[in-house]
């Protein structure tokens, strides 16, 4: 089993290099098949690792440099069921994206396939790595192919600007990470997370420790796209080609949140032991506020991709708040929610890609009623939107139920309620779009929604009749997986057991530094109560209701509309103006955000 761990990173890299060397001479089908096989292999191996590490995580040391007298010189991977599940999600979404993109790109060198495989290797490595600098290197390997892919359609202004914002903002985030590494290495002389954690745990946190954690959190919040670091995400995800959006939105953003959870539980939980309540308060507040703000922005969009981009940012805020509860059930719930949500978002983006191909437009208002003769796409789009709005028994709902239990145990019942509200508002936007596009409901124009300039958004240069069935098949398969995820027997129990093991610092230090294998993971059986089902159904119903309000806003009584206009008008206008599309503003917001995060940690956690 140890020998399997490097393969999900090494195989896509090797295939990408081979395609770089001989790709131009191979027929198109061979290149597509090679890329899809490599992604499928990654998915298979990662799934095997999920099952293989159910009892205890695997600690693999590269280059054969094993821990030596309390020091971990080599680079370590820590493979536990949760991180392996995220690697599996990355693999599955890459297979779906490559299947959708079959015959998509017709250049000499198969650049698209090379960049997607490098992107996959970066995501898998970022999910599994247990070394701070190695996380930075995989952070960059994930970022660079992604922003090159975002700017793939060079003949349109949107992708170019989205790629520039993506590249510059993520590179600055990388620099924040290097500053954090300098501080941690200067203090502890260690780069391995568990090694550094053991060294830091001895003393209460001083300003160096809070600054280092603040920098790491800020860097990963930029990648995850949580307010106020999310501006680049809206421009980049709404400009990237649909298959790329599946990967960006489906898993890349959420990996940033999981990295925060891993860095906290491995390196900083020890020294923050007496300050856990304050750290939780800061991160939960950031997550909830961010989730609600971007959910409202999602509701204000007419461009389908931009709407889903804000939905991704909103859910990143939700996952941050869930992870910040720092309990095993919350971490397990967050990962289950992320996997289910990633599959549902992936299917939604594939549907939008399909619409762009079939109807040559991605704007909800301009597509009014034009989707009537696309029943299969309509079904997938609506079910995907419902799944994202926590409809039982899909994956997201199951994750939400676990997070609800964790929050209830901590006496923070209001947190899941606000998270459900954010899911409802962002889900409502997608349901509204579905109603308008596929059923022709609601008005043909709505000044409330901001539209993007109609550039020639043709996703596919030449017609390919086989394409639509392939796209819908991939989208349907992802949705089926999101449903199937929830029907896996004993999934919640295994997830909570794995989460408990990941947060057991003492056992982790013994295992990594001294090679003492952890005790097998165990957890009480998890029971999803009737109350949880009620909350899930209520959230979906709220989403449906909000969607109807969105469609038939003008038919509300005049008094309600006037009051709503006066109350909500100015803040919405300010919120919309803040998303100016200007690079300088985004960098200023990043500086302000990181200053805020470091300031909060310095003030409270001491």
């Amino acid at each position, binding site marked *: 089993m140890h020998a399997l761990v490097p393969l999900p990173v090494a195989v896509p890299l090797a295939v990408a290099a081979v395609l770089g060397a001989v790709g131009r001479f191979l027929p198109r089908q061979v290149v597509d098949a090679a890329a899809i096989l490599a992604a499928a292999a990654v998915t298979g191996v990662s799934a095997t690792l999920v099952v293989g590490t159910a009892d205890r995580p695997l600690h693999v040391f590269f280059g054969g440099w094993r821990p030596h007298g309390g020091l971990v010189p080599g680079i370590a991977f820590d493979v536990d069921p949760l991180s392996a599940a995220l690697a599996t999600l990355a693999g599955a979404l890459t297979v779906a994206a490559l299947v959708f993109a079959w015959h998509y790109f017709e250049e000499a060198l198969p650049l698209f396939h090379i960049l997607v495989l490098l992107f996959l290797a970066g995501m898998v490595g970022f999910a599994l790595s247990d070394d701070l600098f190695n996380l930075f290197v995989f952070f960059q390997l994930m970022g660079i192919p992604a922003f090159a892919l975002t700017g793939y359609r060079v003949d349109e202004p949107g992708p170019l600007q989205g790629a520039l914002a993506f590249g510059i903002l993520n590179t600055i985030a990388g*620099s924040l990470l290097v*500053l954090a590494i300098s501080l941690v290495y200067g203090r502890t002389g260690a780069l391995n997370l568990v090694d550094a954690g053991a060294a830091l745990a001895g003393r209460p946190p001083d300003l160096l420790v809070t600054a280092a954690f603040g920098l790491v959190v800020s860097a990963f919040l930029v990648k995850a796209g949580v307010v106020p670091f999310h501006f680049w995400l809206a421009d980049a995800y709404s400009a990237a080609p649909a298959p790329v959006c599946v990967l960006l939105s489906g898993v890349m953003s959420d990996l940033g949140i999981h990295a925060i959870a891993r860095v906290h539980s491995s390196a900083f939980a020890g020294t923050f032991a007496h300050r856990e309540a304050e750290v939780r308060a800061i991160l939960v507040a950031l997550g909830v506020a961010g989730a609600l703000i971007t959910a409202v922005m999602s509701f204000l969009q007419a461009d389908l991709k931009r709407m889903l981009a804000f939905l991704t940012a909103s859910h990143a805020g939700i996952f941050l708040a869930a992870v910040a509860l720092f309990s095993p059930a919350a971490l397990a719930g967050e990962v289950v929610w992320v996997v289910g949500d990633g599959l549902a978002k992936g299917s939604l983006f594939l549907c939008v890609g399909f619409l762009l191909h079939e109807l040559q437009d991605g704007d909800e208002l301009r597509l009014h009623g034009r989707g009537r003769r696309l029943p299969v796409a309509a079904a997938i789009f609506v079910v995907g939107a419902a799944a994202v709005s926590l409809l039982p028994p899909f994956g997201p709902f199951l994750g939400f139920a676990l997070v609800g239990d964790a929050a209830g145990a901590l006496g923070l019942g209001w947190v899941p309620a606000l998270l459900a509200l954010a899911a409802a508002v962002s889900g409502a936007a997608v349901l509204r779009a579905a109603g308008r596009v596929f059923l022709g409901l609601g008005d043909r124009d709505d000044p409330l929604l901001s539209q993007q300039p109609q550039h020639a958004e043709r996703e596919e240069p030449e017609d390919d009749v086989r394409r639509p069935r392939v796209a819908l098949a991939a989208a349907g398969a992802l949705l089926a997986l999101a449903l199937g995820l929830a029907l896996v027997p004993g999934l919640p129990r295994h997830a909570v057991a794995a989460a408990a093991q990941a947060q057991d610092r003492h056992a982790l230090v013994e295992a990594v530094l001294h090679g003492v294998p952890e005790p097998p993971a165990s957890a009480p059986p998890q029971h999803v109560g009737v109350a949880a089902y009620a909350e899930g159904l209520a959230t979906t119903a709220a989403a449906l209701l909000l969607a109807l309000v969105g469609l038939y806003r003008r038919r509300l009584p005049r008094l309600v509309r006037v009051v709503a206009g006066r109350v909500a008008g100015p803040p919405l206008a300010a919120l919309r103006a803040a998303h100016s599309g200007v690079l300088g503003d985004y960098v200023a917001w990043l500086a302000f955000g990181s200053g805020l995060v470091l300031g909060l940690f310095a003030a409270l956690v001491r």
Partner: protein
Amino acid sequence: MSVYPYVIGIVVFGLGLGGIAVSRHLVHAIVCLNVAQTGTYVLLLAVGWRRHGTAPILGGVPKGSHQVDPVVQALTLTDIVVGITVSGLLLALAIQVHRRRGTMDPDELRALRG
């Protein structure tokens, strides 16, 4: 005085970051991004320096003398490579933006709004 190298590294990082935010030209912004990255190199190397330390290379150096930290230098090497490749790609993107939009001023690039 013993905190001076750390502060210089942080100040250079701040200069670079500030430069990007107020830049009126994409090439200037990308150069400022490079300056911000070099600030992190200065802090990273400063953390690895040892008093009276010499380069961590054997041969021509007296056996017993102190040597500075090679690990930090390896990290900085990797950073420099990542930095130049990202700058190259961003400059290529800037050339494309100029070809498509006729401007290199980030403030005028407002394709996506709201």
